[in-house]
């Protein structure tokens, strides 16, 4: 995580369905209607980096600067510009799929930045239930990731120093390739790092 973190930047561009709570003229370009007005109750998808803030700043006071406080608005009630609705990634359908078969789930197709988005979402809504589901998912999948990472390693012939892939048939490698396609970007990173680590050490041992 960090300002310059490319994965975090990409995760932040996830599209979140939003419902506007006010008429806002001039923002029509957000729904491909340049110059038009976005009307109250309009639903459209906005990137998280935009939606997140519009969902938490108060529309009713003109400014949160104390010096500029709106004297006509003494009874402040918080209404944001829009509400964020549950993105597809966390709909019941997906959550159920996660609960049913966490391991063979194609997480990448659900969202390539699944965990990053989940963490943002959990943080925004203090969603402990989602946190539990996601932790459990990661823990279960991590065991499979570890198994794959440790088995797609290079094997060395003891005589020559040449390398060849284990799994004398290609199917093993295909399995690994197919498996990594179902991983989200974080899982992929872990898989790669773990795989490199196992490989480097095996290489060192065989060289010895």
């Amino acid at each position, binding site marked *: 995580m960090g*300002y310059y973190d490319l994965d975090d930047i990409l995760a932040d561009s996830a599209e979140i369905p939003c419902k506007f709570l006010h008429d806002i003229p001039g923002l029509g370009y957000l729904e491909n209607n340049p110059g038009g007005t976005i009307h109250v109750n309009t639903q459209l998808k906005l990137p998280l980096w*935009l939606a997140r803030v519009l969902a938490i700043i108060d529309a009713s006071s003109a400014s949160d600067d104390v010096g500029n406080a709106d004297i006509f608005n003494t009874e402040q009630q918080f209404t944001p510009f829009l509400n964020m609705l549950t993105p597809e990634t966390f709909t019941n359908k997906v959550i159920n799929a996660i609960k049913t078969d966490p391991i063979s789930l194609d997480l990448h197709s659900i969202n390539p930045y699944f965990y990053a988005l989940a963490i943002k979402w959990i943080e925004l809504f203090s969603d402990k239930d989602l946190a539990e589901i996601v932790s459990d998912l990661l823990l279960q999948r991590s065991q499979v990731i570890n198994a794959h990472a440790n088995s797609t390693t290079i094997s060395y012939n003891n005589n020559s120093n040449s390398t060849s892939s284990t799994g004398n048939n290609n199917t093993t490698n295909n399995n690994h390739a197919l498996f990594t396609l179902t991983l989200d970007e974080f899982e992929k990173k872990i898989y790669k790092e773990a795989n490199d680590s196992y490989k480097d050490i095996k290489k060192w041992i065989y060289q010895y």
Partner: protein
Amino acid sequence: MYGDLANKLIIEAKRTEQLTQKYLDAALNSDNGGIRNDFNGNETIIPMYNDELIYNILKEVNQLKQNTEYLQHIKQEEEETKDQLKDVLSGHSNDKIRKCQYFVNLLCLERNKRCLMAYQRMRSDIIDKMVWNGLIGSNNMYNNGSKRSGYNELSHYEQEYMSQYKNLIDEMNSESELWSSIEIMGNMNPPSDIFIDIRVLKDIGEIQTEYGTFNFVKDSQFYVRQSDVERLIQQGYVQKI
């Protein structure tokens, strides 16, 4: 939509990062521990600076900047009117609208800024790595006698940054006793087999080393400092046993 171009830039940046990492990992695994003396100048580990995309993003930034200025201007005007008319309702809802428009603009600007910054920092990180990995000639890179005519992949400011960074390291290296005596630019793999047994494959003649003169006659064997014969090994004159 605002920010779409910047997104493209980041996707490109991510691909670049992955590709260069592979290259640099390989350099580390080689015997000389991340120092590439064999860099032949045809390899590019950094892709072309994406002038066109950056230009278009900056155009968008400019547009957003103008919007912001316009909104600020309007807001000022409205506040003046509001003060005069005390038109509660219209003043109120206008405020709300302006605020929303302003935030959307601001966030788009911030988003573009973040993407541009991340792209540039990703590239400057690669340049740093190139400097540390010895991929940059020690003279001025534009016209060092080496294999490259220049670094066309880099933007003007990147080229400037690269040569200044390289100069900084060189300067500090020559001024710091500690840095120079431990050879800070040296091998990142631990020393192993500092001395090795070699067999001479072709007659070479006398070789002068710190440990005296060796007469490298074909088929003779020696125990020598590896760094003394590194080049001969590469050229195939001698062989590690």
